[in-house]
């Protein structure tokens, strides 16, 4: 039975022209109309696929979600890639499972209680590993777009077409060759396995990744900057299914600087007053009082700027 969390890629049959829907990751397919069998070839070592945006009016979505008071500063469609890598991890691992140290009362010949400790449950473990695993990578590391929250479920993808993608919006390409992502993913998958043995003593492993397979997805995202009731936000959502990806409130720098400015004015007033008192009182006792007042003013200045943090 087909896994419904997997994406579908649409091809057209080279023999009869009918549409052939292929589940992601497959290496062969068959046309249901003319019964021809095909090999799926990949030019760059991993297939690149893209989904067409289904949302045409992003501002309307933003108004629905943020209300009528929303001011859309700008909104743009961006294609950001992510990679799904699957692999089989094989090899051996071993080590000593840590036991629990328990205290046991024992008695010597003269009947005296001597507390001794004993380790319970510790044992040597040796295992052969063979496990099929999958990981999703965000090669762009543009975490602010929320790529890690993009899902492929229920979407139809097509074979990557550079020209077509640029017609919809900006496209970020992979910054590194595909093989580097395959290596990175293999390391992550091996780490995932050895994490279960993190408490082991003298832990050793010889794990390798075979049958490495990657698919590069280009999913359209609407990235917007908004103002809602005087607050500023960046907000991104999936341009295929509308799913919210990232909502990030921006700090209002203008307001903050204004607050500090008022605080400083008060402080300058206090320092000024301290100076006047110092000039009027000539006795050493008066200078001392003014000095304490100035110290207090210094502390007040520090508190105004950093106290709330």
């Amino acid at each position, binding site marked *: 039975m087909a896994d419904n969390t997997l994406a579908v890629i649409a091809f057209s049959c080279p023999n009869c022209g009918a549409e052939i829907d292929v589940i992601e990751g497959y290496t*062969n397919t068959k046309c249901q109309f003319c019964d021809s*069998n095909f090999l799926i070839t990949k*030019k760059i070592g991993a297939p690149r696929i893209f989904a067409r945006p289904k949302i045409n009016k992003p501002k309307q979505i933003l108004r629905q979600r943020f209300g009528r008071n929303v001011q859309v500063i700008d909104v743009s469609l961006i294609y950001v890639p992510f990679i799904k890598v699957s692999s089989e991890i094989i090899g051996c691992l071993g080590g000593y499972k840590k036991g629990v140290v328990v205290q046991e009362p024992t008695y010597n010949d003269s009947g005296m209680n001597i507390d001794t400790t004993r380790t319970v449950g510790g044992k040597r473990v040796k295992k052969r590993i063979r496990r099929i695993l999958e990981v999703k990578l965000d090669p762009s590391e543009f975490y602010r777009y929320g790529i890690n929250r993009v899902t492929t479920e229920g979407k139809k993808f097509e074979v990557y077409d550079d020209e077509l993608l640029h017609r919809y919006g900006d496209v970020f390409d992979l910054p590194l060759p595909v093989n580097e992502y395959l290596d990175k993913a293999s390391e992550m998958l091996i780490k995932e396995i050895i994490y279960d043995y993190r408490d082991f003593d003298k832990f050793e492993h010889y794990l390798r990744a075979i049958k490495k397979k990657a698919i590069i997805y280009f999913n359209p995202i609407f990235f917007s900057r908004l103002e809602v009731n005087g607050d500023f936000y960046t907000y991104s959502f999936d341009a295929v299914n509308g799913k919210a990806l990232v909502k990030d409130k921006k700090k209002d720098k203008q307001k903050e600087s204004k607050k500090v400015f008022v605080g400083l004015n008060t402080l300058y007033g206090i320092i000024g007053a301290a100076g006047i008192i110092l000039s009027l009182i000539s006795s050493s006792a008066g200078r001392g009082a003014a000095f304490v007042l100035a110290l207090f003013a210094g502390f007040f200045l520090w508190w105004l700027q950093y106290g709330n943090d």
Partner: protein
Amino acid sequence: MGMIDIKLIPLRCPDCGQDIESGEDDLVHFCSNCGGGFEVIQDKLKKVNVIFAKPDEEFANKRLYYLPMWQILSRISVKKKHNIDVSQLPKEILANERFASLFSELLNKEKPIEKMIFFVPAFGVTNRYQLMDQPGLQFTVNPPNLESDSPKDMVGAEYSLADAIELAKDMFLSIQYQTDTGLMGLKGSDITFDYKKARIAGIPFYEEEGMLVDGLKGYKIFKNGLKGWERIKSKLEK
């Protein structure tokens, strides 16, 4: 026209021109007409030797399904002498004297070089596979006598030869690692696997109470250890 980097190319037998019916993840395809085997290497079909094993007479009347296994001849050399206590190997391995002594010589002699034949399942497996009786290991320890039969319909192979060589190395290393003094990994390339030649052996299996039993030695596989067994079965029965 933009750059397109995935293409569909017709899957036909390079020898007889017959359309090849294949599984979605197969990397080695078998022609049901002439019995030829072809591995996909950089989008091209490269011929591999295939032998279809004749089942033992007592299983010949059963409904048989052929599963592919890589049979790999490799030369193993070990640069320095180790002291592996081979007597600690599992009983089923020690039961085969020839295999146990081969192992002992490889790991406990000065600079030995020995030839070994590995059987590595080439059919797709699930994570359940590692929990079961492994026919690949069993065949490697007790090799069956493969008598050639006429070409049959066979399940495609999901493991390339390169992957199968890695699995063969893994099999060798994991056997000796089970002993107290067993080595972890290749110990700084101290052990060298020199691949010599390989072929695909079509091994007949029959169904029995949730298991697939091989028609040569009677070793078993859980049906859910095979990837998409029910789908493969219905395809083979057509």
